[in-house]
């Protein structure tokens, strides 16, 4: 089982990295770009556990450690190991 977790800054929180990357893309001529957001991507691989267990664990781990919930929000999907 793998949890694929996306951690992003909450709306309204200054995303200075996103701003810098957007700026650079524009300088490189990508004028089609409207906005860029930069966050974290985590893969947590589990030893054999059920979906239900994984679900609960991932949530807890995100709240506790993986995301800084004061300024970040997280989303995740569960998938079975390729």
């Amino acid at each position: 089982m793998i949890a694929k977790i996306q951690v992003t800054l909450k709306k309204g929180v200054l995303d200075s990295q996103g701003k810098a990357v957007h700026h650079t893309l524009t300088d490189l001529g990508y004028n089609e770009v409207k906005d860029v957001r930069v966050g974290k991507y985590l893969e947590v691989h589990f030893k054999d556990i059920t979906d239900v267990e994984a679900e609960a664990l991932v949530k807890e781990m995100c709240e506790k450690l993986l995301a800084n919930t004061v300024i970040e929000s997280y989303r995740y999907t569960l998938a079975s190991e390729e």
Partner: protein
Amino acid sequence: MKLSPDVTVNVQIAREHGLTGEEYRRILDLLGRIPNLTELGIFSVMWSEHCSYKSSRPFLSALPTEGPRVIQGPGENAGVVDIGDGLAVVFKIESHNHPSFVEPHQGAATGVGGILRDIFTMGARPIALLDSLRFGDPADPRMRFLLNGVVEGISNYGNCTGVPTVGGEIYFDDCYNGNILVNVFCLGLIKADKVFLGRASGTGNPVIYFGSKTGRDGIHGASLLASAEFDESSEEKRPTVQVGDPFTEKLLIEASLDLMKHPWVVGIQDMGAAGLTSSSFEMASRAGTGIDLDLDQVPRREKGMTPYEIMLSESQERMLVVVEAGHEEEALEIFRKWDLDAAVVGRVTEQPRVRLIEGGDVVADLPVHVVVEGPLSLKRKIRRPNYLDEVDHLNLNDLPEPDRGDAALKRLLSSLNIASKEWVYDQYDHMVRLNTLVLPGSDAAVLRVPGTSKAVAISVDCNSRYCYLDPFNGARIAVAESSRNLACSGAFPIGLTNCLNFGNPEKPEIMWQFEQGVQGIAEACKFLEIPVVSGNVSLYNETRGIGIFPTPTVAVVGLLEDSRKHMTQWFKRTGDFVGLIGLTIEELGGSEYLKVMFEQVCGGVPTLELRAERQAQEFCRELIGKGFIASAHDCSEGGLAVALAECCISGPGQPVGAAIELESTIRRDAFLFGETQSRILISFSGERREEILAAAERSGVDFAVIGRVGGEDLSVTFNGAEFIRTRVEVLRNFWKGALGEYARQVT
């Protein structure tokens, strides 16, 4: 309730903004009408404790603020002190306590950003940062998280802006469990005749905004009011923490310093707490003018921001500058070079009012003096707290006197309050800009003053346990210790800045502590002739009725005329003699020894006699100046034994031992672990011995030769009996790794 200017303001809304009923009535009186919501928001921030100093101001007048070198005392963004050669130093310390508790990384980072802006706003190039940190019970896992986050935040922001963090202090105590302290000091260098002030002078001059765009960061009143509105759109709850962008800050520093090379810059001001509000009102107030602000021109990050939100936003990395009319384009060109957002957002007006214009309509119109000088100083009640009667005695006879001191010494060296802070300062770039002559790890940081033969020394200090037991004497000790740390580096003090961290000022006991603390700083500063040139007050450091120990942190800045004559604390050569300046008194009150070995916080605070203090410092400086000594280290937490150990183990090379022989009639643990003030350990070669003894005789200080440097052990015999003998390698291991090991543990 809807967050828009057409809400009719009433006393209830004023209360939700943190204003009292009485203050609201005063606003109505002074204004002669009901303010609209935007105006109320402006009052709420400008009349807050943070901006108006309404509880503390009456007490602060006790501080001595003048001296022959003072160019600018309290009242501007930072203090300015002349150091000769046409140069001056600009410095200040500021707190970012509460935000750091909520979000340690960003809270501490934006604290660094704020203090940097206070310095370069005056036209100075920031050249040094120091951080003074307080955390709660180390056993609380959240403290480890906070420690890591705060240090990372300072590291990230300071390093990225290219300003070295050259020193600081860290203490742990349960009293900070609900309120950690993050105080950051910054010092900048400036031409003495090129100090910029935050003045909006000259009717018709343009007001230019530059830096980051404005977002909805940290709008406190709004978050209070807004929950209803935001909830219904079921949007993510907007965080009120501000997020820093050190990269933009770096550009801001360079752009501001570029800008201020031009004669057409009239006044400049950073947007600190209360952002656009405080910067515009303060600039107008200092110049006796007004400002028309066109809110449509303010660069924004988010759509649909109201005037209220624009004015109260605490988005970071923003500045306001007034230039002479006709030079707008030149200014904007500089900001374009540095890729900063910038816009002409207003004009200086003759009428002393700030008017906000949106879509051609005036949406707020307030007389400057009503907003800035309106808040009445509060006459807070004062009462001596009862706890003092419980904690003030300590009977040494109740404490068993140990036969040997090795165990206590090891425990003290690995106490987080005494252990090496290397884990922290290794994360700070403390060398960038090539000025740091004495890196972190000695009593004071020493920085050369580029282009001259001078150096400045800086130390930040406060033992809040002392201040809890006796705020007056605790504060005196903070000043004395900080200044003593400078003396040990060879510098003499030229100015002080303070950050007064206290509990809830509405409690008379807290205000008593506050008054005593300020008086203590005042007395020590007067005696040691150190002017107070800037400072910051942080009140309400209290959670669920439990306040922190009073923590009046001071940072003293010193000068060395000859940068080559700087001194460090560690022993240099085998065979050198070890000498102790200052008298030791039989006392253990408030000591780290008492806390670590007996879990007690009580007793009278260590003795500080200011005359002896001054003598000890002058003597130490004299010896350094003459090149007589090889090291100087003051005795602070952990007393003489810890100071000796630090002399053996804190140097950059291999540790070196020492053999010490003491004779005294007082208890051996008090002699070795007591924290009597005004004591300095020095080391010197045999050839200098007679000269030093003669000099001591002449100056009237207490001085004794107590041992020699050398060997692999630190050994101390007391009245002929061995009290301590441990390999310095072992001592170093206890001392060096403790903090890092603590910080790296997980639960």
